[in-house]
């Protein structure tokens, strides 16, 4: 997976990822059309399929709205790399199949516009523009299983049906 980095700072909250005034719908396309609007008005014009969002500490803090990872995923972002994630956002992203990686070194070093590749098998993140390589935190086995199933619904489906 390879894409251009779109970089933000610390404490990017779910209210700026998708403001509550747009939560009167659960349509992914409509949500994506307002993604990041209150933090970065140009986001929806500049984001290209495969781009990688890079951020600082506590990404996705605030509300439990799954509309936030849904909007990010639907806007074409292939992966979010952050120094750390707020816990509800973390599990929501895993549950809906939006790839996320916790890697403080990569999140500090990668700059906006850098071309970045990610290998989920190995957890290796490469900043191709800068020629630097990073290793992200590996997922626990249980979470790997959810990811392999393509999200929590499929994981549960296998068990109950």
């Amino acid at each position, binding site marked *: 997976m390879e894409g251009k980095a779109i970089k933000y700072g610390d404490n990017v*909250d779910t*209210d700026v990822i998708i403001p*509550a005034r747009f939560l009167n*719908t659960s349509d992914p396309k409509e949500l994506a059309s307002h993604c990041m609007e209150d933090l970065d008005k140009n986001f929806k014009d500049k984001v290209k399929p495969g781009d990688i969002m890079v951020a600082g500490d506590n990404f996705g*803090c*605030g509300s*439990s709205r799954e509309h936030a990872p849904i909007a990010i995923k639907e806007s074409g972002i292939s992966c979010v790399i952050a120094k750390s994630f707020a816990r509800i956002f973390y*599990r929501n992203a895993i549950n809906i199949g939006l790839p996320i990686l916790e890697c403080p070194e990569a999140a500090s070093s990668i700059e906006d516009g850098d071309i970045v590749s990610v290998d989920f098998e190995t957890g290796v993140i490469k900043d191709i523009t800068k020629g630097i390589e990073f290793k992200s935190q590996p997922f626990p086995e249980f979470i790997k299983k959810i990811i392999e199933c393509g999200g929590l619904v499929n994981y549960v489906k296998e068990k109950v049906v």
Partner: protein
Amino acid sequence: MGLTLTQKILAYKAGYEVKPGDLIEIDVDMVLGNDVTSPVAIKEFLKIGVKEVFDKEKIALVPDHFVPNKDIKSAEQVNIVRKFAREYGIVNFFEVGQMGIEHALLPEKGLVLPGDVVIGADSHTCTYGAITCFSTGIGSTDMACAMATGKAWFKVPEAIKFNLKGKLGKWVSGKDVILYIIGMIGVDGALYKSMEFTGDISSLSIDDRFTIANMAIEAGAKNGIFDYDEITEAYVLGRAKRNYKVFKADDDAEYVKTYDIDLSMIKPQVAFPHLPENTKSIDDVGSVKIDQVVIGSCTNGRLQDMEVTYEILKGKKVHPDVRLIIFPATQDIYLECVRRGYIEEFIKAGAAVSTPTCGPCLGGHMGILAKGERAISTTNRNFVGRMGHTESEVYLASPAVAAASAIKGYIASPEEVA
């Protein structure tokens, strides 16, 4: 190794020994959703393909964010929830006229009890830790899977201990305690962890505790939880319609950190834009003129909050440049405010009083801010654009500070008006 209060509850539910970092799948006692998160959950639930929900009595659906319906789209979202509730026989669906803000409503109705494991597709689900249960926010997909299976997965958290002592001063409440703590540890100060409140908690009313546990998420915590005592018991008895189990942390429980906090030293706090950690003591606030005051929400819309608002407002007038909006959190609280004559005094003072709704707290409806406007609010978040325009500002404070500010037209100490 001894276990913390949260770990004890999780270990009991797991039925085997657990340690921090373990991933467990356990039964839940209550699954909650609202009008924003439930429609997404229902869509996912239907994909699973089960014919029934795991337990018709252990799901609560509370449309509260955009109700009474603010527009056609939100009306349709609520309708999805309403139809699902009818079709699947969900017992605890709360319609406008019976509802309240979910986190005030569930404990009030006795639907969540000490020792329970509660998950809710709303981040402020952590509120119920006030009555010594494990309670945490999750997303819509987790909600969907739990509605189907009655289970959820958790990482057993480490804990931070808050060892409390002393008594709160006049006009100081739970809101000031939690803002003070968030100011001290930061918005990710308890990331992935439990915040366990122990020591001498006897001066904290149950409403103070709900407010404190409610904002644990604002420090990034997984849950906030209080020890069980006579105050908890007095609240729960008479509401509980089933047995419950009381847990206590082991004496040799391990905490990643312990803070000793003397409640008597805490002054009224104000969190400046745009993070709840930007707190100042009321004495250091300076001159901040305001346009709107909001008193209510899952954080501060309970009877004690209405009582202190009444004490400050009675016989006074809201500043002519200020709009004061008060929203009691549940129908029962609203009715008690009517009986006690609070509502009459609020209206005489020049306040607008609303039926229960999350409305203004999240910039949904019923009090949106224009560009450049400033509000002081008893709600829980002051992020960019939280209550309206991205160039508006929200200051977080207690009902006492908010009510005093409504009279003065600037952020004011209750001492200035009382």
